[in-house]
């Protein structure tokens, strides 16, 4: 009886340990993710990208107003000029993955937006816009 009790305690411990096992998926954006329905063939800054900034970035106290976070104002009237400021590195059309914008969107330690990472399709949308030359279209 005592031996059985010890065995079952041992078994319960193993089960508890097994539940503590964690699988880290990593934080890579999956470029293969099926975003066909959400990303147009030609990405428009005004129709597709700007609404993302308006919803998640140029909110009060963040990238808006006279003293925007990081001195980067992403309100509709200023976003394009600010992102394309020469030498800023926010946009990189030759290697979008090297841009400050993309790095911020996927950063583990300082992610933007602060209240939660954008879904992969939205991030892929912005990358596609950069790949297409980051036009003010």
């Amino acid at each position, binding site marked *: 009886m005592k031996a059985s009790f010890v065995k079952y305690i041992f*078994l319960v411990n*193993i089960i508890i340990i097994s539940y503590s096992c964690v*699988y*880290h998926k990593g934080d890579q954006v999956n470029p293969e993710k099926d975003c066909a329905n959400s990303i147009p063939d030609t990405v428009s800054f005004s129709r597709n990208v700007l609404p993302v900034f308006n919803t998640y970035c140029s909110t009060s106290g963040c990238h808006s107003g006279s003293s925007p976070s*990081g*001195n980067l104002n992403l309100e509709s009237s200023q976003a394009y000029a600010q992102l394309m400021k020469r030498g800023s*590195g926010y946009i990189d059309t030759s290697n979008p*993955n090297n841009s*400050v914008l993309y790095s911020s969107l996927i950063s583990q330690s300082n992610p933007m937006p602060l209240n939660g990472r954008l879904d992969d399709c939205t991030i892929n949308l912005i990358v596609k816009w950069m790949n297409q030359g980051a036009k003010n279209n």
Partner: protein
Amino acid sequence: MKNLFKENIAFSVLTICTVLYLSSCGKKSDDASPSTPTGTLQFHLHTNVDTNEVGDFNTVYSIPVPGSATARRNISVSAAELYISNIQLVRSDGSLYNVSNEIVLKVQPIEPYTIGNVPAGNYKSVRFYVGLDPTTDKRVLVLPADSVLNHSEMWFGSAATNGHLFINFQGSIDTTTVASGSSMTPFSFKLGTNKNYQPVIVTQSFTVSPNQTQFVHMIVDYSKLFTSVTLNNANNINISSHTDSTSNNAIQISNNISSMFRNEY
């Protein structure tokens, strides 16, 4: 006896199943490679005077007047460059990673600077020097045209072998005691020599992920160089030669270098 035997068999089967289940657990993705995974680290550096980002040279900005809650002192900038070298990353466990041989010449219009491929992981701060170590400062070599050391505006005199400016900060500042704005006087802080080789530590937690680019975002606030400098003495705001750089005035200014750098966040 027979029951005990069955019980032992059942227990053994359960244990084997549990062990198999455990062994099917996935491993962390960064353990998958036998070699240390790396990511690209870049510095993203803003050029500021106080909270004003220097957009164009010779634009007039204002900076706080020490001891006053409201007074502001006008300043304009015509040059803002500095060298960053001997970069070290401090891991979250306190150990150091040395970034070998990377020297950054931070100039006003450019914000991103590639530091290099560094081991993936969690870091809690960066350390570096503003300036160049004595060997690099006066290296007698033919410098490649694209070398960050081959910028004549960052030399004392006409050759790199005379030594480099570690900081080249020039412009005009209101030198009136009450900051009335009536006397904009040119200033020149050309600091170099080993006496002004200053360490900087910036605390910023960041994670370098494998095969990704991570930026460390910092603001370089040149207005801090004026801390404790008496402005209405022309000698205090004109440090222009190799000899000037070894003066007490110059050393007082360069002692402010460590406070120039702060987190963007």
